[in-house]
Structure formats: structure tokens, C-alpha cells
């Protein structure tokens, strides 16, 4: 690793209690404490959040786009896996 570059961190913000953390972007920071502080300054200036998670980007393992046919296409014709036969009451939010 280039010692003059801070590592990259992925930032997840929970916008309010009860919701899950959502990925909002990334930033550079020297360590986890500073990453949380930087995330506060960069991503919660306009009341966007009540909780912050950060994880160093190198710890995220992603699926390979070359695998997308094998990974995702087989689900396309299995309509019976969707719970489309239930009616969701209006009072249930965030489904």
C-alpha cells in the first residue's frame, strides 16, 4: 500500500430508527475512528442519519460481473418464488 494514501472506506447510513443502514458512498481516512468522523462531516450534514457504519473497502468481496449470467439469470423465470399473492396493508411501510 502506498503509505502516503489513506485507505478507502465504504460508508453506510441509517436514516432513522427501524430502517437498515444504506450504502451512501465512500471516503478516505487514516483509521476507523476518523472514518466515522469524516462520514459524519461528509454524509450527515443535512440530517441524513442517526447511525453510521464504516467498513474498509478492501474487506468487501464482490461478485464478478462475468458471473452475472450464471448467478442471476436463472432466477428470472421462477415467478413462484415471489410472494405476489399476498396483499400488503397500506399501513406497512418500507417493504
Amino acid at each position, binding site marked *: 500500500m502506498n503509505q502516503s494514501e*489513506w485507505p478507502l472506506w465504504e460508508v453506510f447510513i441509517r436514516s432513522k430508527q427501524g430502517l437498515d443502514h444504506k450504502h451512501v458512498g465512500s*471516503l*478516505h*481516512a*487514516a*483509521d476507523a*475512528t*476518523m472514518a466515522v*468522523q*469524516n462520514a*459524519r*462531516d*461528509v454524509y450527515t*450534514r443535512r440530517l441524513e442519519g442517526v447511525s453510521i457504519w464504516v467498513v474498509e473497502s478492501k474487506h468487501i468481496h464482490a461478485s464478478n460481473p462475468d458471473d452475472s449470467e450464471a448467478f442471476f439469470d436463472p432466477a428470472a423465470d421462477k415467478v413462484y418464488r415471489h410472494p405476489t399473492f399476498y396483499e400488503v396493508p397500506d399501513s406497512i411501510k418500507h417493504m
Partner: protein
Amino acid sequence: MSATLPETPATSVPAAAPNQLFPFVLQLADTSLILAHRLSEWCGHGPVLEQDLAMANIALDMLGEARSYYQYAAELEGQGRTEDDLAYLRSAVEYRNPLLVEQPNGDFAHTILRQFLFDNFHYHLLRKLKDGPNAQLAAIAEKSVKEAAYHLKWSSEWVIRLGDGTDESRKRLDKAIATLWRFGSELTTPTATETALQEIGVLPDYAALLTEMQAHTEHVFAEATVPLPAPVFAQLGGKTGRHTEHLGYLLSELQYMQRTYPGLTW
């Protein structure tokens, strides 16, 4: 600047207080305004995007706090001057900010140490003011203490990282300490005005404040592996209007628009 403060509840401050209160509130206002301006000079020049934003955020917090104090000061003075008149149309010798906050930004370590010295005082003062007998100051402090708590956390974490970071960062922090330490004591050296307010209980005893500040400094410097600096001769004067040459240059930029286009609004 057009918003006004919420209705002031009745205060239990003794009747003699307003005479001392006006210059003191002005001192708080000037201090926040001048430091806000210094921090705003970093905008677009920060070492990294994240810290550029952090400093601009803190500058805006301090500017908001300054406005509240200026509005209250204008009300206390009762001479028809507005917050803008007080902020933009006084000369350098009329400003009451301590010397520390008018010192130039220097490098990042210099700005961080200046901020740390100020935040440590500011946070502990606001914690006392928010429970103090003056309702207006208590209301402003109640709002600002949350911001100041973050400022102190931010500057403390940076002192730790610069001190315990690389040879280069440590060298720069040491240089900042050598330059700025002499300005720290003015914050807790009461003027005649502050002493008078302490006697009637509007202001906390600075000796007690200093104990809390020192405990925090010791904790942060220990983590930063930086030995506590030996006491140095204290540079005083800003709070009584005797400033360093830097304030004049700062004000010529800060006041330019109002001086050139009097009464300008947008």
C-alpha cells in the same frame, strides 16, 4: 442576517449586570466570528476533501453561534445597532476576541492545535453557561454545546494522530505548540469584566474550568505521546482590544463588502 432569536425568558441576573454583560457577550461573539472566518479561509484548500468539509462545517457552527451572541449584544446595548453593525462596522481595537483565534492558519497542524486549545475552553465554558443564571446565554449555550462537543472530539483526535503519526506530522505539531502555546492562557485569564460577572455568578470560576481543561489536555497529549508543554509566558491583550497585527488584515477582508457597499444585502 435577518433571523431573530426566540423570545427571551425573564432572567434572574442582578440589575447591575447589563453594563458588564454587553462587553462580555460581544467578546463571545467576536471570538466565534473571528475563528469562523479563519476556518472559512481553509474552504477549498483543505488537505483532503473530508477535512475541507469538516473545517467548513465547524466554521458555519461558529458563525451561527456568533450571530446569536451579536443579536443578544445588540439588544443589551439598546443603541439601535444591529448584529451586522457590531460584526462588520467596528475597528480592530474594538474587537474583544482573545489573541489565539486571530492567529493565522499556518499549516494543518497549526490550525488543529489552535482549534484544540479553543475547543477545550469553549466546550467546558458552554457546559457551565447552559446551566447558568442568564437565560439567554443558557439558551445559546444549550444549542452550541452539542456542536462544541463535536469540535473538541474532532480536534482532539487530530492532535492524537498528528502527535503519534509520522515524523513529519509530529514535527509540525511540535512547531505549532512552540508558536501557539503562549496564547492559550488568555482564554482563562479573566478580564475586569469577566471577574465582575464571576462575582455575581453569571460566569463560572475559570479556575474550576481550568481543572477540567487540563485533565482533557493531559489525556489527549498522553495518547498523542507528546509531553505536556512547560508553562510559557502568557500573551494577553485581545480581550481588552490590544491585538496582534493579524487582526487588521483579517478584518479588512471580513468587512470589505459592508465597508465598500454600506447596507448591502442579498
